[in-house]
């Protein structure tokens, strides 16, 4: 079939519509959790600035992790449990390091913005950023590995499926992690 034919465009329309339906429904679920977050907004001034950055950071980290694993699976470079263990060991440090360092930098920048521009001293923003990223990593690192492997085992292409889905899952887990972090801190 031609890549740019009317038939292909029609098929694309169906595939895009279906994946969008799942993606935006997941987005709405993240929005429901965001409502709970909003209840703490007066306690945590600056949270509206912090949360989009944290969601973006987690989405990027885990979609890259899924893409790295998908590439190796499709190239048949991960065949045994030992190969998978090796992949996990190489990635777990990088994911933890990136989550904690980037969230710390983001938390500090948001803290200073809120301090100098909005004249509110709220160091909890930094703690929330780091702690929620820690919770998110503990939940999402194994989940991303497991779902990518599961998709591959069912003879589906993880590159097509994991990309849009992992960012939606990531949004939901990130918001839940922020709520848990706030509850621990306050």
């Amino acid at each position, binding site marked *: 079939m031609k*890549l*740019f034919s009317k038939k292909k*465009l029609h098929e*694309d*329309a169906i595939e*895009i*519509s279906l*994946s*969008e*339906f799942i*993606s*935006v*429904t*997941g*987005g*709405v679920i*993240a*929005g*429901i959790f*965001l*409502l709970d977050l*909003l209840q703490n*907004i007066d306690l945590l001034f600056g949270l*509206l*600035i*912090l*949360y*989009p*950055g*944290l*969601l*973006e*950071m987690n989405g*990027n*980290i885990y979609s*890259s992790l899924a893409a*790295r694993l998908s590439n190796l699976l499709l190239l048949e470079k991960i065949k045994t449990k030992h190969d998978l263990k090796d992949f996990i060991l*190489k*990635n777990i*440090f*990088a994911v933890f*390091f*990136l989550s904690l*360092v*980037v969230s710390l*930098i*983001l938390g500090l*920048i*948001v803290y200073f*913005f809120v301090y100098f521009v*909005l004249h509110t001293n709220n160091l909890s923003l930094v703690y929330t950023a780091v702690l929620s990223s820690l919770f998110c990593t503990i939940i999402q690192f194994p989940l991303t590995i497991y779902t990518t492997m599961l998709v591959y085992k069912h003879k589906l292409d993880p590159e097509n499926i994991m*990309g*849009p889905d992992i*960012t*939606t899952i990531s*949004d939901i887990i990130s*918001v839940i992690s922020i709520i848990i972090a706030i509850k621990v801190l306050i």
Partner: protein
Amino acid sequence: MNSKKIIKESIKVLIIGSLLSSFGGMSLELIRTKLTLFLPLVIVLPALTDMVGDAGTIVVSKITTYLYLGKFKKKLLTKFILDLFLLLLKIFSISAIYVTFLALFIGYIKEGFSFNFMFLLKMLLIILITTFTIILIIFSVALVGSRYAFRRNIDPDDLLIPITTAIADLGSLITFSLLVYFIL
């Protein structure tokens, strides 16, 4: 790829991407009170940013394939590009309408948020205008940027997907906040 290489390749993009999104979050501070009053606006936010982000990824990957097949040399607006634009506009308009109604429904069920027809119309207008505006910007950036990248032997996917998703995040939050500020 070892840990050191992953960290080295990812850290800059992660910091810039998350800062841009948080910059978009600053515009939400402008409508803080309205967000606490009109709860469906909060429910719809992650879906809205997800949706326009997906649009960016789809547009760039389609245009990149089109470029690699040599179908996109002289004219910027070919029939395929126009068809793709109209198709995405249709799909994302339907998604925007679906997400608005779903957010209103959940707001009503979960928080007892009652609304009148005027509020429904205004919210629908805000979501649709935000979606149209960002898709138009993303499409223009992808069209011009992909040709630029292609001519310089840079993979348009690598260059433009992070750029369009950042524009989508930042642009959608700013457009949404401004529309909520002026319309509601």
